[in-house]
């Protein structure tokens, strides 16, 4: 699978402050790509460079095999974190205007608008002014605006903020549908559960540097601790503990189960899981045996705080 977007060693400085320090990214075509990082890490700077709002001091950005150039703005859809629309303009006119700015003809823009307004059930809003809408409603319009021109690359900065759970779900489904249709989506958020749910690839930027990048599964493999959550029913707790601590590191665990079992976290290091199982089965009945997979949230916190 080829990359839709490649960022090569991009550097951006504001005065003496380095916002991006030789950051490189590869965003595969047709994927949902999570761009993560704590506040002030440089995510927005990077997004602005991809959108050609600012230029990098050095390095280059390749979109679909070509060096980034002005015509590309028409193939990118951008939902900035800083939301806003012309407050005294009517919804319909505003959407038409913004779509035409992205290169759609008036008729084409109208067709797309009808499609999207219908899809999101907001047909009645055409003649309303933005200032008459609630924040969530305006948010929906904003989402429509950034997908109207069928962008190859969609950049969403905190797309779910301001939405109630129902509407957040609607938007999530739309994002997945767009992906099915072939759009590539860069998704920047602090909500790790939605990253877990949507993203196939992630990158983590911290203090202007890219620290992690790859497929979510690969990243998790990289961060695996070889720990297992174990539940066991035994009469001889002391004997069991003696056996395990000989070979492995143990700590108490906390998970839900229906049994009155002993709950443990066991780190096996370089040993194989079978060795652990062998020890366990000799001392009691195993009711729970799961490898502890680090969540994106764990990886984020671990990387940023270390």
């Amino acid at each position, binding site marked *: 699978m080829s990359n839709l977007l490649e960022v090569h060693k991009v550097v951006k400085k504001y005065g003496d402050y380095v916002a991006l320090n030789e950051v490189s990214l590869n965003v595969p075509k047709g994927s949902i790509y999570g761009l993560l990082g704590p506040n002030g890490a440089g995510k927005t700077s990077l997004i602005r460079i991809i959108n050609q709002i600012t230029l990098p001091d050095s390095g280059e950005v390749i979109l679909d095999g070509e060096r980034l150039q002005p015509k590309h703005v028409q193939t990118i859809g951008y939902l900035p974190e800083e939301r806003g629309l012309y407050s005294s303009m009517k919804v319909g006119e505003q959407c038409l205007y913004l779509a035409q700015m992205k290169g759609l003809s008036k008729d084409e823009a109208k067709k797309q608008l009808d499609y999207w307004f219908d899809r999101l059930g907001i047909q009645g809003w055409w003649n309303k002014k933005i200032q008459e809408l609630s924040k969530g409603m305006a948010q929906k319009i*904003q989402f429509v605006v950034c997908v109207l021109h069928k962008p190859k690359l969609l950049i969403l900065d905190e797309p779910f903020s301001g939405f109630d759970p129902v509407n957040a779900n609607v938007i999530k489904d739309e994002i997945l549908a767009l992906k099915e249709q072939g759009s590539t989506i860069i998704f920047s958020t602090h909500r790790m559960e939605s990253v877990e749910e949507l993203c196939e690839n992630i990158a983590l930027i911290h203090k202007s540097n890219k620290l992690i990048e790859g497929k979510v599964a690969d990243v998790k493999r990289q961060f695996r601790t070889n720990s297992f959550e174990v539940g066991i029913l035994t009469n001889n707790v002391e004997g069991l503990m003696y056996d395990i601590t000989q070979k492995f590191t143990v700590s108490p665990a906390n998970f839900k189960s229906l049994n009155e079992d002993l709950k443990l976290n066991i780190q096996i290091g370089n040993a194989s899981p079978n060795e652990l199982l062998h020890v366990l089965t000799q001392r009691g009945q195993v009711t729970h045996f799961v490898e502890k997979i680090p969540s994106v949230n764990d990886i984020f916190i671990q990387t940023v705080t270390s």
Partner: protein
Amino acid sequence: MSIISLIIKREFIAKVRNKSFVVMTFLSPLLFVAVAGFIGYLSSMKAETKQIGIHDETGLFAGDFVKQNKKDSEFHYLDLSNIDVKFLKDSIVKENLDGLIVIPKEDLENKTEYISNNSPSINFIENTQDIIASKITKLNLEKAQLDTLAIQKAQANINIHLAKSSGEESLKGLNEIKIAIGGAFGYLIMMFIIIYGNMVMRSVIEEKTNRIIEIIISSVKPFQLMIGKIVGTSLAGLLQFTIWAIIGLGLMFAASGFFGVNVGPTAKIPPELMQSAQHELSGTAQMYITELWNLPIAGIIIGFIVYFIGGYFLYSSFYAAIGAAVDNQTDSQQFLLPIIMPLILSVYIGFFTVVNDPHGTVAVIFSMIPLTSPIVMLMRIPFGVPWWQIAISVLLLFATFFLVVWFAAKIYRVGILMYGKKPTWKELYKWLKY
């Protein structure tokens, strides 16, 4: 190009649909007429007649002053030479008299006094001095036993006729007309810039207050946005100006009809008188009219349109640059003064330098400098300006306009990163180097 026209269209419609725009468009002429009417009413009220006492110890001048008394004149002179000065001074305190001229017997050239609690107008003082001085001159002449009549006859009057090298006669007073034409157009440009420049600035700030800036700027270049905003807003301003002109004229005619004042100065003169006057005047009047037609009228009108557009665009681009640098209007104040200064300067240069010497070095230089050229050059055009000077000045004007828009666009792009921070001049300079 289509994107720019799209922006122009949106800006124009957004401005014109705005409620305050609609209200101002139709309210301003009404206000204007009301104020004009009020001023007219005030100035038509007669000033109070002032009682001026004359205490003339020589007995020579009082008569000349009293001779000046007329029914409608502002000052009424009273010969009070027989009454004690002290008593007269008291009556000034009691406000029975508004002023008192005291002419002593000795050294009256230096010791003549005017006593009043209100400071007199310059005109009044000069008039008083004239009356006394001319009387003394006349007496001196008589004393020297000179024939005053002969002297009057001997006084020569010269009337120089103006002519051009081409041989046609030109008329005195025409220069004033030329200045008036150029000046009126120059003033119009200045008014327009002051009224509508702010509108451009507000329009540039709009995207920031609405927080739509990132969406817009990721779709169009700031340069396109700036040009679109300047042109779109100008068109809206032009529309409003045109409506004002039409409504204003209409209201003026309606109001003057209502108050019974006839438009035009000749209305109340009896027909016979007018005919003879016309007969006498027609010679010179016709010359004036032909001379007016000989003015480069096409040049003036084309010049007005070109400099109006160029000048307005240039100043708008400065307003746009300010709008690009600040987040809200209150922050813009400190940057506004440097814009207004050259505007005022050019009007002064126009009225003081161009009048005296339309083709002098100062006038030529300032009609080239883009900031002052729209007004100064317009005032020079009626006097005839070589085409190459106009070409250079127009070229400079539009080149500067594009340069400033480019500059504004640059500030705009960098300004995005400066949310909520007040820019200083130093910072602006730093942004330019990015």
